[in-house]
């Protein structure tokens, strides 16, 4: 029911029909001739609107009731679905890395900024030997997190990417959840792109087992 209502609301773009607080702004027509344009220029130059703005600033300053976030001392809280610098997650059960090196993130990346090297290790398992994302090229679209079959690569909340070079690489180890964080149990699951949707268990078809 709720969803239907929302859809209706968004589909009906004729705002005047909705009984709401919308009203039309009184905007004068654009001047058509040279004289009209001249008059408009004069009006804009000498109305002193600049001081209106300055007055607001001054008023708020002397009130000492500041709403501005004092960045970088203060930071805004970020939504759990925010797509900032990538993280590599570990498995809860064993603390081992979730990434299996399938290369789908590399394939799907539309800005072509992910590269991955793999090899077969001593236990004949696929090992990721190197993994890099060029954050200078990354557009944080979230496709890599969405395509990841293991929920290994996700986005995190780290959005401070200031760098002295346009190319700014982040490597596998930098993204990987530190072991002490795993031990403390503070690894956070990402709720955004790629995360398991609610009620997944009910939707999945079960495979019969002969055991």
């Amino acid at each position, binding site marked *: 029911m709720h969803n239907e209502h929302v859809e209706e609301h968004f589909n009906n773009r004729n705002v005047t029909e909705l009984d709401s607080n919308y009203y039309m702004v009184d905007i004068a027509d654009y001047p058509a001739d040279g004289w009209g344009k001249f008059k408009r220029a004069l009006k804009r130059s000498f109305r002193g609107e600049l001081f209106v703005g300055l007055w607001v600033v001054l008023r708020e300053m002397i009130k000492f009731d500041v709403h501005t976030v004092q960045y970088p001392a203060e930071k805004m809280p970020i939504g759990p679905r925010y797509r900032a610098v990538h993280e590599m997650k570990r498995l809860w059960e064993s603390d081992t890395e979730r990434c299996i090196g*399938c290369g789908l993130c*590399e*394939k799907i990346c539309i800005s072509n900024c992910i590269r991955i*090297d*793999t*090899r*077969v290790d001593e236990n004949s398992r696929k090992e990721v030997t190197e993994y890099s994302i060029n954050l200078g090229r990354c557009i944080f679209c979230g496709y890599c997190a969405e395509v990841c079959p293991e929920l290994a690569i996700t986005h995190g909340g780290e959005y401070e990417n200031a760098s002295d070079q346009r190319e700014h690489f982040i490597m596998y180890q930098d993204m990987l959840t530190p072991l002490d964080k795993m031990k403390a149990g503070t690894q956070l699951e990402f709720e955004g792109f790629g995360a398991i949707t609610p009620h997944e268990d009910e939707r999945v078809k079960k*495979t019969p087992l*002969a055991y």
Partner: protein
Amino acid sequence: MSKITINIDGKEIETQEGEYILNAARANDIFIPAICYLTRCSPTLACRLCLVEADGKQVYACNAKSKEGMSVTTSSENIIKERRAIMEVYDVNHPLQCGVCDQSGECELQNYTLEMGVDAQHYAVKDVNRKDIDWGHIHYNPGLCIVCERCVTACKDMIGDNSLKTVARGADALEAEYKESMPKDAYAMWNKLNKSLIGLTSGEEMLDCTSCGECAAVCPVGALVDTHFIYSANAWELKQIPATCGHCSAGCQISYDVKHTSIDNTDEKIYRVMNEWNYVSLCGAGRYGFDYQNEVKAKDTAAFAMALEAFKKADTIKFTSTITNEEALVLQKLKEKFGYKLVNSEAKAFQTFLNDYSEISGTKLYGYDLEATHNANFVISVGTAIKSDNPNARYALNNSMTVNKGAGLYFHPVKDPVIEGLGKSIMTVYHAPLQEEAVLYLILDLFADKERLPSDVVSYLASFHSQKSVTVEEIIKEEITEIVKVMKKNEESGEEEEVEEEKKKMVPKKITKEVIVDDNRLLDILGADEKFMEELEKNLAKKDSFALIAGPDLYTHPNSRNLARLLALIEKYSAFELTMIPTLTNSLGVALICELDEKQGSYTIGYNTKGDFTLSALGDGDLDMPAINQQEGTLTSINKRVNPTNAAIGYNGYELNDIANELGLKAELVIDYTKMLPISKGFKTKEFDSLPNRYDNDGTEHRGYLLENLAAATSGDESVLKFSDEKLEGTLIYMANPVRQFTPFTNKATNLDEVSGVYMSEEFLSKSDFNEGDTVRVKSPSGELVANIVSDNKISGDIVLLPTFDSKINSEALFSSYRFATASIEKV
């Protein structure tokens, strides 16, 4: 075979009578799903996906033959049900770890699972422990295996190694209720699948075959993977560079799969070689010998200046045939301009042989090719260690026997267990070296049309025949009567009692009798088996297309001219069609393009061979050159085809064209010469960029162009010389490489790990006091060398093989020109 019309899904298509429906459909772009079928091999009937309805009856498209007016429907409600059930069965217990599978992205299980819309699983069986196995150059993961048996089929029908077979899986039986509840074909297919896995025929732990890797190439899933490729790249990351293999004269179409080397190194690297396995089969050299490129950091201007100096000083250019046609033309143009002598002994021998041959045949080139040999049903190989000289010729020989119910005859002095292993219908004759003329005379004797054959040849052949009486044992059936006691019911008393009865029966009886038979002395001379004629007669039954493969032993034979003329006679007066194996990659191209000289002068420039100044793509010369996988150009193959090849990886140094430009020939790129290749020799004026390199769905080859087989002047003289009884005896050496090795280029490849040395058969080693690894001195009238003994189980008999793939061992020095020589071998 005649053309017929059949109807598939309402589309009228033309095909050959007796063609499998699946092939007919594929040739006409009609899709019928199929996993286990391999074009050019016999149908396996493992997957049953190709179910279709032909004239209202369900048949398997891969083994049902087309008939005139047949109406085929590729799907029906029942077929769709079957196919979906089959795919579900394939997915039972298949690991869901596509992310770490090397086949992911090009997996037929993935594709067909999607195609059939399998979104839920209804079947289950308890899995068995399926651990992955290292078979050496191939890695087998039974957990991923769907037992389509494509590997087994390819190995048996195409390659001829017969190294793989199905083995027992040891799984629980399927639940009884499935028999009722499941679609019929899906159940039958599952029942078979659930009982088998793939294993080695030899029962050993490691694969011991000719290591072609075709099994891994045809594997639809990730069960068989080349060990070197495991987890190194994904299918979708690799860029395919269409090319032609540069290792032997077969000129197989390959694609170099390239990708950046690593995150740190963005230079392209070849990760693997792929082939269109439905239409072309590779050998181990083609598949694994791909990284022979010459890595050069930058242009070496000093060396280049020295090279130009050397060219001014030189009067001879000595080269090998591992060059492109364009480079050969550049050399020829340099000769025309500066009068260099062009020396290439192996191409010169082949050139002379071809010229001698054309004096009788009237054509510049032999008439047949390997493609046609695949379709023949009686194939003779003479004068070549076929499995290592040209692996594709061996596949053609094997394929003609397995698929066309053909037979083969193999004449060669070196005993070869691999050839013997091809099957029951191959007959081997191990004659003495220098007796190749007798072989060709025997072929004339057995197969030529005596009516048309020149009369002196006929009478010469007749001189070998005599009549002799032999005692033969025969088994006849004789009727005898015997008295047996049987228990019978007495009808009156109703009791059992013993009665004597007469019984007649047929009993086999051995008798001996004298018969007059024809005695062919040629057979004795060649050392053929006593039962040779008898077996041959059996093998010749129902044969109608004959192919003869002649090889490099003949070109350097002291009487090569006579051999060439005999071959021409065979081609002219018998049903045999002739293919000659060019000695090296582009020997045919070089032989056609270059005017070659016999003797070298005082100052020699060597190209890929040692000279006073050496240009080398092996990286060991005075100036570096690009290897074949770094070049654009064309190569002339055994199939008389001018195949284009492309540069798979970059090259930063100088090439031959740069030198030619400095010397006054003007061409921006070496491929500018492609259209200038001599028309008088059968080449065409085609631009390199216009040359295609692909196969059609019906297997039609669109690669480069075919050489025109031009007419040659004949004198009408068809006389041939008698052969002498001269043969080599004693300890014999033979100049041949092990399978997968051809030149120092294959030796450079990391994945080809053959050790160089003196190759002796296990049989020879056990008889002699030599042991594997011993250092020996081999001495022949022409020279000597010291090397280690390598034990080789791919040959048997007493002849010792000296390879040429390792430039550190100068085997050529021991031979005058013929590939066999007598030698003494002693330990050092």
